[in-house]
């Protein structure tokens, strides 16, 4: 036969989307809000979570799904603080897939939780393209990485529901300007809330925690 063209129109993310939807339905049923924390290796994602544990008080109960290419080090750090944590090891993959997240999420004690924070693999590119069933993506950017990262990695910052800027304690020592960095975020996402923090001493954490608390309250309010 001569060459034939078949029209297809199939979403290449369909399988990932199906797993993400399953997670989203389960989260809605259990009134749990899922956050997808995305940032470079070393930007301070795990330190941010450690800082939150110290500042949190009775605001909400959270567990962490810890994505890494290798080792259980980050999970051990959080386990030491008595946070329910599950380590997801991708063995080389640059992002968490919705399927991997779902299998860990469904095994968490969801009835006793308000928020599940998924710490994605350290990477500003790949995790941004994969829905894992989250209520919001959170971009984590340390000021030592450079003010222009939001415009260099636009997909993540465009889709983020919140941006956390870490390591503000280093501002006196580095040639970075907080306002310039926030302006770069605004270029790709005009409305997103930005939270400058120092997770080590707790500066800036209360507004960030209040933002999560509002999200958790909205989630609890649904279907009830």
């Amino acid at each position: 036969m001569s060459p034939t063209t078949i029209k297809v129109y199939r979403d290449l993310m369909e399988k990932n989307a199906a797993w993400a939807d399953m997670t989203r339905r389960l989260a809605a049923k259990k009134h749990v809000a899922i956050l997808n924390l995305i940032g470079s290796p070393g930007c301070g994602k795990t330190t941010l979570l450690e800082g939150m544990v110290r500042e949190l008080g009775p605001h909400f109960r959270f567990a962490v799904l810890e994505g890494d290419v290798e080792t259980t080090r980050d999970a051990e750090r959080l386990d030491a603080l008595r946070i329910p944590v599950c380590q997801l090891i991708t063995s080389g993959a640059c992002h968490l897939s919705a399927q991997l997240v779902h299998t860990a999420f469904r095994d968490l004690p969801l009835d006793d939780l308000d928020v599940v924070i998924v710490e994605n693999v350290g990477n500003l590119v790949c995790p941004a393209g994969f829905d894992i069933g989250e209520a919001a993506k959170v971009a984590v950017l340390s000021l030592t990485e450079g003010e222009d990262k939001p415009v260099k990695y636009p997909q993540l910052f465009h889709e983020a529901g919140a941006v956390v800027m870490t390591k503000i304690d280093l501002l006196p020592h580095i040639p970075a300007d907080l306002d310039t960095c926030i302006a770069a975020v605004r270029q790709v996402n005009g409305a997103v809330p930005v939270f400058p923090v120092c997770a080590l001493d707790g500066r800036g954490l209360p507004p960030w925690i209040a933002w999560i608390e509002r999200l958790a309250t909205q989630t609890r309010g649904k279907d009830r």
Partner: protein
Amino acid sequence: MHEFSICEQLVRVIGEELARVNSERPVHLLRARVAVGRLRQIVPENLRFAFEVLTRDTPAEGASLELREIPVTATCGGCGWHGEVEPNRFVCPECGGTNLEAHTGRELFLESLEIEDDEPDNHQSLS
């Protein structure tokens, strides 16, 4: 590097579509057309390399991969302007506002396949 994961899905979907083709003889793929939104941050060379590797020993081996880039379009919530923007500049060119809603740019789908069935007698008749 996410191109590899995406290509795995592409090859899976192509396999399913080829299996559905109603043909007496096995078919092979000549060309696959994929629509890619600019917000997806796909590097065409990486996707092509993954395609070449992942289609080895399948009916899609040797097929060409045609990518159709879809621009990012958005509407300004401030003044109503609508048009194309750069992926890293969601700023309204009319009023300078940053409250832009994106409409296109996140696409990632297989649009069409060009196939041909294997004709084992071809070589004999040509010689």
